[in-house]
């Protein structure tokens, strides 16, 4: 990211490819950059991430009638409801819900008084429903055409049976907590487009954002991130002042703002937008934290602490740290591993928290392994005074990176026999199974993975790896893979499954 020096196109240099050497040491004119040892033939971004046209809220201007965007509409300007119905279909390549007839749509969207009943979901904690100027209107988030229908095409046959589908009357919290994310996403869209919500009533506005969060998060959990990335565009610029109340408080819950950053980056086809979005949120978190700390130092007398304020400071600093990790993740997702490693090295854990220091060291080590710098991964964990089991995980992975699978097996087995954290055990065992396959011990690998499934695990890597082993051990692997899907469907495990999970 730092050296973007264009190199001259033609280099009169000697070329050695592979093992052949066509060396001639004639009078070579070499244009070396004296100030920099390292040159990029192409700017890195062009290689790993071709610059794509940036699309943003302004694109909506393509539509015949301009759509009032939150950026352009101040709180005092009343919305023009008719323009909210301007078709934006051209932007979307995905199948849409058929738009209702204009008449019914208008009545739904224009009259705040149309609201007939409160949603049961609007039972909010007071902090989540800030007071609002009556002029705020979020009806542009309730247009039915925003929300795409979901098909069952990608769902493996054993999971499609109607006995496994939840009752349509199941409440949204129940659907979410039981892991029926597909149904929850559909339900959330139904509630958003139902006529029960008033787009300008403060309590309902909080509900709207909560439903959008549920809709988008559940879409990502049932393998429909691409759809979520389209639907999130409707929120447009969440940093606009339209999303704040008169006291400057943001109306959108923090988690939705964070979620929208990555999804909008995908939706507008610009991953960098994601990184920038996190930085903007981090700026806000830092400012909030500063003012909170200021009020702490101004009000508290020595020996006396304000618990609520301390908690507030605590979770804002957690938010700030998490944003740092999300920036690194966004860089990894852009395939800029080097940039991610540099960025992570600038992060420092809070001095008083050894657990998060250990977590950060593990994250650095994982990134170094991904980069191929195994030594750096080892030294990353040797510095921290972290948790012993986390270090062992990195050591085992480093052995595997060094092709020393037998040593890795020993560590995984040691971790399994001495584990104090039951939630990490499936990971240890799964990785041990993978190790066995590389050692030519497929039978044992299969036994371990099958045992994990029997015990109720069904995460993607497990089913994917087991399906890979099935493909290796017979020509009739499809039957085994369907059998695996049936078994997991029959166990009623939480979460949604896609065909890719079983290589179907």
């Amino acid at each position, binding site marked *: 990211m730092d050296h973007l020096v264009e190199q001259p196109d033609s*280099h009169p240099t*000697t*070329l*050695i*490819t*592979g*093992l*052949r050497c066509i*060396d001639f*040491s004639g009078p*070579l004119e*070499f244009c*070396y950059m004296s100030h920099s*040892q*390292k040159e990029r033939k*192409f700017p*890195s971004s062009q*290689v790993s991430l071709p610059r794509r046209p940036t699309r943003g809220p302004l694109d909506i201007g393509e539509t015949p009638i301009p759509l009032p965007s939150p950026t352009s509409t101040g709180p005092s300007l009343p919305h023009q409801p008719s323009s909210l119905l301007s078709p934006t279909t051209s932007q979307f390549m995905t199948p849409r819900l058929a738009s209702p007839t204009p008449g019914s749509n208008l009545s739904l969207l224009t009259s705040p008084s149309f609201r007939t009943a409160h949603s049961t*979901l609007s039972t*909010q904690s007071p902090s989540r429903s800030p007071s609002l100027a009556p002029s705020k209107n979020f009806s542009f988030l309730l247009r039915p055409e925003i929300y795409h229908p979901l098909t069952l095409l990608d769902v493996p046959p054993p999971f499609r049976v109607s006995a496994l589908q939840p009752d349509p009357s199941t409440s949204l919290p129940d659907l*979410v*907590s039981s*892991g029926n994310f597909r149904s929850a996403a559909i339900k959330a869209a139904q509630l958003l487009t139902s006529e029960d919500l008033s787009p300008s009533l403060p309590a309902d506005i909080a509900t709207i954002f*909560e439903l959008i969060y549920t809709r988008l998060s559940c879409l*990502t*959990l049932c393998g429909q991130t691409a759809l979520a990335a389209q639907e999130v565009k409707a929120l447009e610029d969440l940093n606009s002042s339209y999303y704040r109340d008169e006291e400057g408080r943001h109306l959108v*819950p*923090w*988690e939705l703002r964070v979620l929208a950053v990555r999804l909008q980056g995908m939706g507008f086809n610009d991953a960098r937008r994601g990184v920038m979005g996190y930085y903007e949120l981090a700026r806000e978190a830092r400012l909030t934290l500063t003012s909170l700390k200021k009020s702490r130092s101004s009000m508290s007398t020595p020996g006396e602490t304000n618990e609520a304020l301390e908690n507030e400071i605590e979770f804002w600093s*957690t938010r700030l740290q998490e944003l740092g*990790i999300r920036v690194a*993740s966004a860089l*990894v997702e852009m395939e800029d591993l080097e940039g991610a490693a540099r960025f992570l090295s600038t992060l420092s854990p809070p001095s008083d928290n050894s657990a998060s220091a250990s*977590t950060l060291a593990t*994250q650095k080590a*994982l990134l170094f392994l*991904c*980069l*191929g*710098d*195994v030594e*750096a991964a080892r030294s990353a964990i040797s510095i921290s005074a972290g948790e012993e089991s986390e270090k062992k*995980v990195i050591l085992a992975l480093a052995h*595997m*990176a*060094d092709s020393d699978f037998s040593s890795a097996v020993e560590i995984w087995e040691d971790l399994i026999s001495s584990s104090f954290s039951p939630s990490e055990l*499936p990971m240890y065992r*799964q*990785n041990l199974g993978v190790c066995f396959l590389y050692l*030519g011990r*497929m*039978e*044992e690998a299969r036994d371990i993975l099958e045992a994990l499934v029997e015990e109720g695990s069904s995460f*993607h890597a497990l089913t994917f*790896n087991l399906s890979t082993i099935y*493909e*290796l051990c*017979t*020509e009739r692997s499809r039957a085994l893979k369907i059998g695996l899907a049936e078994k997991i469907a029959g166990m009623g495990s*939480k979460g949604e499954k896609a065909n890719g999970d079983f290589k179907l």
Partner: protein
Amino acid sequence: MAHQRTSSTVDSVKEPHSVSLKVLRLSRPSLSVQHPLPLPTPSPSPTNSPAPSASLAYPSTKNDAFILSPLLTLPPAFGSAYVGETFSCTLCANNEVLLGSNPSKVISNVRIEAEMKIPSSGIPLPLRLGPENPSDADEEKEEGKVVGKEGVDLEPGKSLQKVVNFDLKEEGSHVLAVTVTYSETTPTSGRIRTFRKLYQFVCKGCMVVRTKTGLLPSSGEKSRKWALEAQLENTGEETISLDMVVLETKDGFRSQGINWEILSEGEKMEKPVLMPGDVQQVCFLVEEVPDAEGKGPEPTAEGKLIFGILSLAWRGTMGNRGFLSTGALGARLK
């Protein structure tokens, strides 16, 4: 992408084989990627947000917002094969006889042989099959007796798994040829059957090295000095980190790298990371070392002084190793 050629008709019998062969390239397993959802704090009730573990690679209770998790995933595809890397592949011979099939067939003495056909030679190279000593010999016996080269007896549904490793040294088309031989015995007859499958893949160069040498102005000393510069370009599709670049000199020369291993105090060594298309420049000082009689190294018939060769080692994703040496490098004498 490797593609499988139609199996040659070594076996003239049209009857389908009772043993199948399945192949998987064992590139390094990858770290599972996760996209942890930001969750409401403090969590409201009744909650409309998914459980924290729902968006993690595995249901961990750790609060981790990072994209990489330590959970390993087997290679999903063949990927690219590069000169300098070790090609690993697992071969599985599977007894496909269904239990209770009629006539009942017994499969014994299953053997796998593998060879690699490389671009520069018409004669395929035989490959060593691992693991040679199954670490759990006892368990192995339950599935079938291990009788060295004699082959393995396979129960229905059981497999014989082997792993081959091959150092890729040439660009171009490689063919992995696998031959499976086994005995098929029915109550009335017995015969030895064999089949052969070919897997073709293309090996590409991932590192291009350009060099140039220049005579350094002498500082009044007797021995001559040169600077050997090299540009290393990552022409592959993966990010790699350079592990080592060494100029291995012949007798009569000594060299000193003036690259990233030279650190000022308090600096930590950072290995250069090359993304696809990146170029890293390295430089070595080469010095003539006269022998006991005070004579310097002799030039070749073409009037060229040969310093030695450049060796480079790198690591790809998840530590995948690559190693390459150039041909002889030197300076032309005026």
